[in-house]
């Protein structure tokens, strides 16, 4: 009887060892976007998504309805109340699929907001860096970034 019990114990141990006991990682915690009053993705839609293989980064450009509409029209004119937000992550290998890369640590969040100022449109740009979303103080190069972001062709989403 004793032998039977120990056999039983060994068997259940073996089963425990065989059954999947790797922890299940449900979320991509590395790539999580910090919640902050500095930016807001709620209600924004995907305009496009792109990667830079040399830098190993993945980006998604979001926009509100006005921004999406302008982007589809080629941003020929800049309207008011448009919000563009470009989120850039570092990439990591996808643990679930050999052959894929997914977002990793957040690199930057760039926010463009257009407002009316008198008869013209004011374009405001902010760059928030890293997980702590530090506002980049240096404003040189801003117009280039605005041009780059507004120059993105939307993804075909039929």
């Amino acid at each position, binding site marked *: 009887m004793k032998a039977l019990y120990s056999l039983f114990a060994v068997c259940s141990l073996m089963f425990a060892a065989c059954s*999947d006991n*790797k922890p*299940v*990682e*449900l*979320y*991509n*915690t590395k*790539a*999580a*976007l*910090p*919640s902050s009053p500095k930016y807001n*993705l709620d209600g924004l*839609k*995907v305009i*496009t*998504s*792109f*990667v*830079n*293989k*040399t*830098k190993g980064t*993945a980006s*998604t450009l979001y926009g509100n309805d006005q921004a999406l509409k302008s982007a*589809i029209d080629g941003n020929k004119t800049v309207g008011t109340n448009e919000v563009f937000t470009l989120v850039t992550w570092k*990439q990591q290998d*996808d643990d*679930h*699929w*050999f*052959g*894929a*890369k*997914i*977002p990793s640590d957040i690199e930057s969040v760039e926010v463009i907001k257009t407002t009316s100022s008198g008869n013209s449109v004011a374009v405001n740009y902010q760059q928030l860096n890293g997980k702590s979303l530090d506002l980049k103080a240096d404003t040189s190069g801003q117009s280039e970034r605005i041009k780059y972001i507004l120059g993105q*062709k939307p*993804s*075909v*989403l*039929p």
Partner: protein
Amino acid sequence: MAMKTNRKPLYRRKAFLIILILFAGFLCIQFMRPDVPNPPVTGDLEAPADVKAVIQRACYDCHSNNTNLRWYDKIVPIYWGVASHIKQGRADLNFSEWNRLAPADQKGKLWESVNQIIAGAMPLPGYTAVHTGAKVSAADLAVLKNYLASMVHSKPADTAVINAADRQYQHWQKNKTAISKLPTAANGISYIPDYKNWQPISTTERFDNNTLRVIFGNDIAVKAIKENKIHPWPNGAIFAKVAWAQLQDKDGTTHTGEFKQVEYMIKDDKKYASTFGWGWARFKTPKMVPYGGANVMFTTECTNCHKPMAAEDFVFTQPIKH
């Protein structure tokens, strides 16, 4: 004393009879054997010798027309299981009829194969427990991975690719792709146009097949993510995964080119109980042509590849919270 010695032989005889009957039954069922023929090889897998050797040794018993059954495989009832595995294995993936697949599909099956090995799903664990020689070692796996990695090339898009993407874009931009009647897949799932207004939960760069993807979640899915209730996902949650061809520019940025397809997974543990609790559908090109045509069995392709993710409710994507 006399009683005891009398009883024992009787008891023994009973057991003997039972064993005899069982053995006779065992012998009888040996004749109930489904046929496992080896059909002709129409075009075998072509790969470097070391790569092919691993696949032949580990996979060919179930995924080729060169099945090599050992004597212990031929004993019923083990044989019944073996025969059904071979039948299903061959139907889903047959390295002896490799030439029947388009080059892109051949590549796809190889990447899928390596991923099934990494996930521990293939070769079937019950099979390697007996056929220990079929196990894929870490060194074997490295051979396969290196081979696949050597097939990955990334170069700036040529004009033909750029032009095709441009044409499609202009069509879409002018709203010419709008669809009046929703196409429906063989399993009754219709194209859901609203997916583009959902929230993206992740993106992937797939260097195995040169695509970029965005995975969208509907409101129920997004709410479940926020509330940490995705294990299992709630009924009503829907994912839409969009794939585009990669379009690499000269500066090293890779953009979304031609739209290829949108795929859905719709959670309903009752309605879709037979397909892991999810309803599956894929619609190709901006015309949203249902994948699989009239054949509802297209879903086994989806479920076979998603099966190793059983512990994650068959979902690959790890959502990004915000």
